[in-house]
C-alpha cells in the first residue's frame, strides 16, 4: 500500500439488514415442539402396525396431528378402520373453520399456490397468523409456520418411525402443556378485537361443557358457536 493511498478504514456504514419478522422465532419454536411430538407419532404409528412409509405418508399428506394420533390409536388398539376414519375426521373438522379464518390470507396468493398452502391450514398456522395485528404480516406468518412445521413434523415422524420412541413419553418433559401455553400466547393479542373476550369465554365454556358428553373433536368444533357471543356483545354496546 503506497503512501497517499487511503487506508482501508472501517467506515461505520449503515447497512440496512433484512431483519427477520417477529413471527419467525415464534413459528420456529412452535415447529420444533411439534417436531418432537412427531417422533412420538412415528413411533406410535409403527407400533400400531403401520409401515415406516405409511407413517411418513400420513404426516406428509394428512398433516393434522390430532387426526393422525387418533387414527393410529384406534388401529393400535385393534379398532375398526371405520372408527379410525370417523375419529380422524371429527378431529380434523375444526380445520374447516380454520379454512374460513384463512380465506382473506390465502386469497392473496395465486390459485396453484393456494391449493398447496391450503394443506397447511391447521391449529398452529392459523393461530400464529391470526396473532399478527398487522394484516400484511399474516400471510408470511402462515407460510413460515406452515413450512417449518411441516418439515419438523415429517422429520420427527421419520425419526420416530425408524428409531422408536427414544425420548420416552413427551409428557415427562411437559411438552403437552407447551401447546395450550403457546395458544394462550397467540390468542392474547387477538382479544383486543371488539367482542373477542366474549367469544373466547363462550368458546371455552362450550368446549368445557361438551368434553364429557360429545365425541372427540366435537368440543373444539362446537366452540365456533362462541362467535355469537361476540355478536351479542357488539349489539349490547351499539
Amino acid at each position, binding site marked *: 500500500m503506497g503512501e497517499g493511498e487511503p487506508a482501508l478504514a472501517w467506515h461505520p456504514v449503515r447497512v440496512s439488514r433484512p431483519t427477520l419478522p417477529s413471527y419467525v422465532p415464534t413459528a420456529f419454536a412452535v415447529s420444533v415442539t411439534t417436531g418432537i411430538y412427531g417422533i412420538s407419532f412415528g413411533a406410535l404409528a409403527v407400533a400400531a402396525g403401520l409401515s415406516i412409509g405409511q407413517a411418513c405418508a400420513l404426516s406428509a*399428506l394428512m398433516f393434522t396431528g390430532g387426526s393422525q394420533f387418533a387414527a393410529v390409536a384406534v388401529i393400535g388398539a385393534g379398532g375398526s378402520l371405520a372408527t379410525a376414519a370417523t375419529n380422524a375426521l371429527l378431529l380434523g373438522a375444526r380445520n*374447516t373453520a380454520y379454512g374460513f*379464518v384463512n380465506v382473506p390470507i390465502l386469497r392473496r396468493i395465486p390459485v396453484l399456490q393456494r391449493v398447496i398452502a391450503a394443506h397447511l391450514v391447521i391449529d398452529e398456522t392459523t393461530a400464529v397468523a391470526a396473532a399478527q395485528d398487522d394484516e400484511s404480516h399474516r400471510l408470511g406468518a402462515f407460510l413460515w409456520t406452515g413450512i417449518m412445521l411441516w418439515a419438523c413434523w415429517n422429520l420427527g415422524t421419520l425419526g420416530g418411525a425408524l428409531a422408536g420412541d427414544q425420548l420416552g413419553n413427551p409428557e*415427562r418433559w411437559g411438552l403437552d*402443556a407447551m401447546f395450550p*401455553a403457546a395458544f*394462550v400466547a397467540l390468542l392474547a393479542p387477538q382479544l383486543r378485537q371488539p367482542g373477542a373476550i366474549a367469544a373466547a369465554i363462550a368458546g371455552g365454556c362450550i*368446549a368445557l361443557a361438551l*368434553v364429557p358428553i360429545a365425541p372427540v373433536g366435537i368440543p*373444539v368444533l362446537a366452540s365456533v358457536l362462541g362467535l355469537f357471543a361476540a355478536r351479542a356483545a357488539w349489539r349490547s354496546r351499539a
Partner: protein
Amino acid sequence: MTWPFLLAMCAAAYAQKAIAPILLGAWEPPHRVRTLLHLLAVPVLAGLIVVQTLGDGRELVLDARAPAVGAAIIAVWLRAPFLVVVLLAAVVAAGIRLVT
C-alpha cells in the same frame, strides 16, 4: 392399514382444510366479513386451549397441565416473550410430574 384407505383419509383431511380457501378463493370479503372471519379464530382457539389443558379423551381432569397453563396465562399477562411463556409451561408441568 391399507394404502387406499390411508390415501382416502388424507384426501378427506385435505378437503376439510381446503374447502373454504379454494371455493371462496377469489372472493374478496367485505370489511365486516373479514373482521368476522378473523374473529372466528378466537372462540376455536379458546376451545382448543380448554381441551388441551383439561381434556383427556372424554374426561375432564386436573393434572400438571392446568397449573402450567395458569403460569403461562400469568406470563402472557406480564408480557413475557413467547418462548418464555412456552418454556415456563413445560418447566411447571415437568416439575409437577417429577415430584408427584
